């Protein structure tokens, strides 16, 4: 067992510098706007901030994700709540048009929380992304812009947690259940910074 640990440590020590040469740190900071649902309650998330920090290796980036936004409900304006999310994801640059212009797709998992005066829902989600990014070298750094679309998929909460007061029109009754998962659709647009 000791030998195994020793060999592992030696291999890791040798491999780390080689891997470090091909790893690059990069980040994204975006303005975001979108629609987020909780069961039968459809809310509007804006303005918002979406951030990503990750490590790139080739066409892949492992990233941490953070979101924060105001969350309002059409029938209850101007009152607004909040939307916050933390997650991890994987971004893949699938199409490279050259000159730093690339199309990317991403997938991630996270946990978000929606708070309103009568709603407080925290749940896990899956995030899917698609977008366009452009980067240019500025000295040793890279700087650019991106525009993208994001989709958040989460399980709908029990209808009992949703008060009828925030629903409009055909709000689900206490016994009703949403037939499919909740969806959040968002647009992001912002800056890319990296090594």
């Amino acid at each position, binding site marked *: 067992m000791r030998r195994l640990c020793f060999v592992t440590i030696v291999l890791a020590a040798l491999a780390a510098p080689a891997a470090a040469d091909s790893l690059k740190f990069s980040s994204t900071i975006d303005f975001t*706007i*979108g*629609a987020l*649902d909780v*069961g*039968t*309650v*459809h809310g*509007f998330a804006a303005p918002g901030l979406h951030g990503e920090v990750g490590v790139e290796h080739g066409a892949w980036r492992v990233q941490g994700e953070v979101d924060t936004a105001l969350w309002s409900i*059409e029938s209850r304006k101007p009152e607004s709540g909040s939307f916050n999310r933390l997650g991890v994801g994987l971004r893949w640059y699938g*199409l490279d*048009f*050259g*000159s730093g*212009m690339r*199309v990317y797709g991403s997938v991630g998992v996270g946990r978000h929380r929606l708070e309103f005066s009568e709603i407080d829902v925290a749940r896990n989600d899956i995030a899917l992304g*698609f*977008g*366009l990014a*452009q980067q240019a070298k500025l000295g040793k750094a890279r700087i650019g812009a991106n*525009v*993208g*679309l994001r*989709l958040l998929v989460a399980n*709908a909460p029990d209808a009992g947690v949703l008060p009828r007061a925030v*629903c*409009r*029109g*055909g*709000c*689900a009754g206490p016994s*009703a259940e*949403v*037939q*499919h998962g909740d*969806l959040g*659709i*968002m*647009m992001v647009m912002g800056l890319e910074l990296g090594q």
Partner: protein
Amino acid sequence: MRRLFVGVMTTVLVVAPLRAAFADAAPTLLASDTGSDTATDTGSDTATDTGSDTATDTGTNTATDTGTDTGSDTATATGTGTGTGRNSATTLEIALPEKPRLPPPVAVTPPTPVLSKAWSTTAADPLANRFIVLAAFGGAFMTIDGVGTNGMAIQPTLQRTFDRFELQTDLLLVDWNPRSNGGGHVLRLGAAARYQAARFRVSDLTLDAVLEAGAGWQRLMPDEGVVRNRADIEVGIGLRMLSRLLPNQASSASGARPIFFGVEAMVRLLVTPQRNAPNDVACVLAFGLPIGR
């Protein structure tokens, strides 16, 4: 010894004042020159003296010489020595410094333009044919089973352009805000044929007005109730600004195609024919940033 000393002193005392007094006339008095004093230098800067100069000049000559060098290799130098007496100056040898040789003139050919046509799909119109990816975002105003609603929309889009003709496919996802018939989401997969009815080119920029017609398949996903599918037809208009970004020289030399980047806005009217109910309609506004090549 005394005689020698007297002789030396006499020489110093007599000759020195005479030299000082007749310094200007020294050549006249002391120099004798016969022959012509025209020095010509032909060839590579070596003056030759034609004529017999048997002059010995022990005086002070105030000679002036002028040298002219014509041509790069056949320099001729003329030296003219003039004395201020009967006997003009003697031979002068003038060695002009050799001029550096200039390389022969070479015809300069203008550099090859960076805008090589190698990567251009069509030499006449490099903006014509392209493949575009569009991340579009917007909103939809629609009726579902006759009840009006609205919602935000996202629409990833692919386009292929053949001169003025375009093919497009897109995936539209709309948040269906709750109304009397509930809420939910609408997913639509569509395809359209498009035509650039008008376009305006400014250098590497194109402004296009595009008309489109197509059809799609809708999937209605209400919060409550059963998911159902239906078909629709659509017409629309798009306004687009697209600029061609120049690849670097390496890319150009390797035949890389140009890159396009711009902005596009589109308005689409969807009609969903229904047999036993009024037709549903929808207006979708989408705005996006296209890139492609």
